């Protein structure tokens, strides 16, 4: 099927391209969008639909798989093949899609509860295996759909219906977790920055293997303003490959390496521009990416790096799995192989 059709590169290699350019509208389904007015899911949907025409793929070769949660209604709004599955299981289901169909671009949409609470295991295994798919993790630091319980990314002390005296859970840092799980593409972006969202999502789609994009997403109903400290504090550290990591008002702050080897932030004026480290997302070793992830203030979110922490090549599970499987010139060759298998070697005739 894919042989005679032009194909895109990298993460999308093998996925047939549209013969004539598509528009955002082509990727918009007729379903009425049902999120709360003001929900951060809207801008992400818009950004996603915005990049699809640029990816060049056909909508029939796009598959969006989601779990359960507010964000997981996403597939209904994208004109493509889609599956709204079970709580936490989207990466597992998407793995089956991706492995069996190299001609499909597979996206997973999930929430902080979906991906990190019930679905944590499937997520880390997808990352370890490096199955070719792009995971959009909508992190609103709350369970939206079930009306506001704390999630594994909520700050400690969060008061919710299930934690009236404040939660005692220490939060995950999704980027650290993904790096610890051998992730090859790990990034973070935020609903309020359309340009950044777009750029990161595109890079993620183009990465071959599992791409994890944590998206800070505001839930206006149950966790409104969760990212306001970050937006307010000048603490958003933008990571750009090959660029010195400076941020804050007028780039006055920078990331530097202390004598003990750990990364810390400090005023550039104090440390000197030459001591600001340069971001390298493509280094084989995840040490730097992990160190940068530690700059996230997971509780208060006064500070957090956004951008691509890591983007490296590693052989892709599904490519390798498919390479072991015999493909056949035609149906009869396949039937012959099946026949041979059934017979085995130790037969007798009666």
């Amino acid at each position: 099927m894919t042989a005679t059709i032009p194909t895109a590169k990298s993460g999308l290699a093998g996925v047939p391209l549209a013969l004539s350019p598509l528009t955002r509208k082509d990727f918009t389904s007729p379903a009425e969008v049902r999120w709360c007015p003001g929900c951060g899911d809207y801008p992400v949907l818009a950004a996603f639909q915005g990049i699809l025409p640029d990816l060049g793929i056909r909508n029939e070769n796009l598959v969006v798989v989601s779990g359960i949660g507010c964000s997981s209604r996403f597939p209904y709004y994208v004109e493509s093949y889609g599956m709204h599955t079970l709580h936490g299981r989207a990466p597992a289901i998407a793995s089956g899609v991706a492995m069996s169909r190299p001609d499909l671009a597979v996206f997973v949409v999930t929430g902080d509860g979906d991906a990190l609470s019930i679905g944590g295991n499937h997520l880390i295994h997808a990352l370890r295996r490096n199955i070719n798919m792009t995971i959009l993790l909508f992190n609103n630091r709350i369970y939206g759909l079930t009306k506001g319980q704390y999630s594994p990314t909520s700050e400690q002390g969060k008061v919710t219906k299930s934690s009236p005296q404040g939660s005692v859970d220490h939060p995950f840092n999704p980027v650290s977790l993904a790096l610890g799980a051998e992730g090859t593409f790990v990034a973070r972006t935020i609903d309020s920055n359309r340009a950044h969202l777009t750029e990161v999502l595109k890079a993620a789609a183009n990465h071959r293997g599992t791409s994890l994009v944590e998206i800070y997403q505001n839930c206006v109903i149950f966790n409104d303003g969760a990212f306001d400290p970050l937006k307010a504090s000048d603490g958003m550290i933008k990571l750009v490959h090959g660029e010195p990591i400076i941020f804050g008002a007028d780039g006055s702050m920078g990331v530097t390496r202390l004598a003990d080897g750990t990364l810390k932030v400090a005023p550039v004026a104090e440390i000197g521009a030459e001591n600001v480290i340069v971001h390298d997302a493509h280094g084989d070793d995840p040490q730097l990416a992990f160190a940068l992830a530690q700059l996230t203030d997971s509780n208060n979110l006064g500070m957090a790096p956004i951008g691509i922490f890591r983007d490296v090549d590693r052989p892709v599970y599904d490519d390798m799995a498919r390479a072991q499987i015999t493909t056949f010139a035609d149906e009869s060759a396949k039937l012959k192989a099946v026949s041979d298998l059934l017979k085995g070697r130790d037969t007798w005739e009666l």
Partner: protein
Amino acid sequence: MTQVNTIDHVVIRFSGDSGDGMQLTGDRFTQDNAVAGNDFVTLPDYPAEIRAPAGTVAGVSSFQLHFADYDIHTPGDHPDVLVAMNPAALKANLADLPVGGIVIVDTADFTPRALSKVGYAENPLEEDRLAQYQVHAFDLTAAATAAVEPYGLSRKDASRTKNMYALGLVDWLYSRSIDQTVTFLTTKFAKKPAIRDANIAALKAGYNFGETSEAFAVRYEIAAAPAKAGTYRQITGNRAAAYGLVAGAARAGLPLYLGAYPITPASEVLHYLSDAKRAGVMTYQAEDEIAAVGAAVGASFAGCLGATSTSGPGLALKAEMLGLAVIAELPLVVIDVQRGGPSTGLPTKTEQSDLNIALFGRHGEAPMPVIAAQSPADCFAATFEACKIAVEYRTPVLVLTDGYLGNGAEPWRVPELDELAEIEPNIITEPNQPDGVYWPYARDEKGARAWAIPGTPGLTHRIGGLEKAANTGAVSYDNDNHEVMVRARAAKIDGIVREVPDVVVDDPSGAAKVLVVGWGSTFGPIQSAVRLVRQSDRDLATIHLRYLNPLPANLGEVLASYDRVVVPEMNLGQLAMWLRAKYLINVESYSRVRGLPLRQSELADDLNAIIDEEAAK
């Protein structure tokens, strides 16, 4: 010369330490008889521990083989012949041997220390406690070691050829050729010539020992069993189930995708399919059972035949995902190789106690067809039928086998693919409504929905676990629509009855008042028991169920036509309950939950008593 007696069947049990290679020995002897045209059934049995301490009763591994010149269905209740490679094996198995049975013992390890390890105060070979058996005690280890001397093996390796020596002897005893085994060893140890030659030498030496010594006064011969002409192989239930999937997918023209997580006794289904990549099969060892079935559901959505294999604990974990497959109406074949439960239970033992969870183990109204295999080879046919139903009705289907079927072997006539039923996936590629509209939940006359797969232009659509509107498949919270959909899904599954053949009663005299109803792996013991009952000049009718859901259309009628209906099961009466509910017939449960197949003789006795009781009424 030794006298040759012709007999019609024999049950032989090889037993020894886990490290003694008894499974291989049994397997090879099976093959030797198979080639000679006997019908056979095997029953391997090994310790739950990977390697229990050597020389202990807990560490005994055994392999029982029943072969005959007629069609047989069980590995036999009791061995006629016991091969015991050490004191532990003798201790563990002797009680099963009926008086007059043959015992072949390797005396090498009958040292005071070894004896006391298994609780023999004195050497049983030296007492007269074996007087009631025909005992043939030799130092097989020494004989084998001597025979392989030329090949320069280590002492340990040399002594390990004793199993081939024993095999050679038994081959001689039952007048079997050793040629196939020689070929087998040649291939198996192609890269280790010394081992290869030593094993062949030991095999031949054992054979020759029978031929030349006068240890055995009688030798046996069992004629070929009548069988349909064709190419045969020996097959275990797990392999047959795996191949049923391969054949089903091939006939449907769909790629096969198996998602699985290892679990005893089902792991082999994963193993065999992982070794079937040359036939285009994709397998995925997932991180757990939920991911395994999830990936299979994903693959089905993507246009494969998704399948998953597991045992009880894994099936329990898959429950939620099966519900998704039910409402998404995607094809999926689930193979459950049942084992002893509940919980971790008895992982290496057999049981039929997952029928309830198969029929009823999902939340909400989530009906699924359930098919049970009746013998190792039948696992192929049952699984193949499951593929057909899964694909043509877009539904998950459960195939129930069990540890006994999975590990047991019997001869199987390898079918040509085009002998098998056609499977019509009917994947749609064009809009099915006016104006280029596609309704994924439009149904065909069978109730199957219109299945389109990714990559097909114009048919993009979204499905999921929320209730959907009839036809369009859009999310719907409408009350009446829900009722329509719940009933439509149920009706679709009920309608599969059109694929289910009517049961045909086996009631030769037509005079039976008692009907015995089996399902799954009780087939063998029931058939054998029925034969015994009839040999005692009693009338007994029997049927065997393959489809547990939906049940055959004529079943109620059949059940109602007998005075008494007995359902033997390896559980506490799960099928009995289902039949009672369906047909309001006072089905009696005959239940044995011992982790073992039913004993044919015990069953026959009990059935005799029931028949006599009924006659006396």
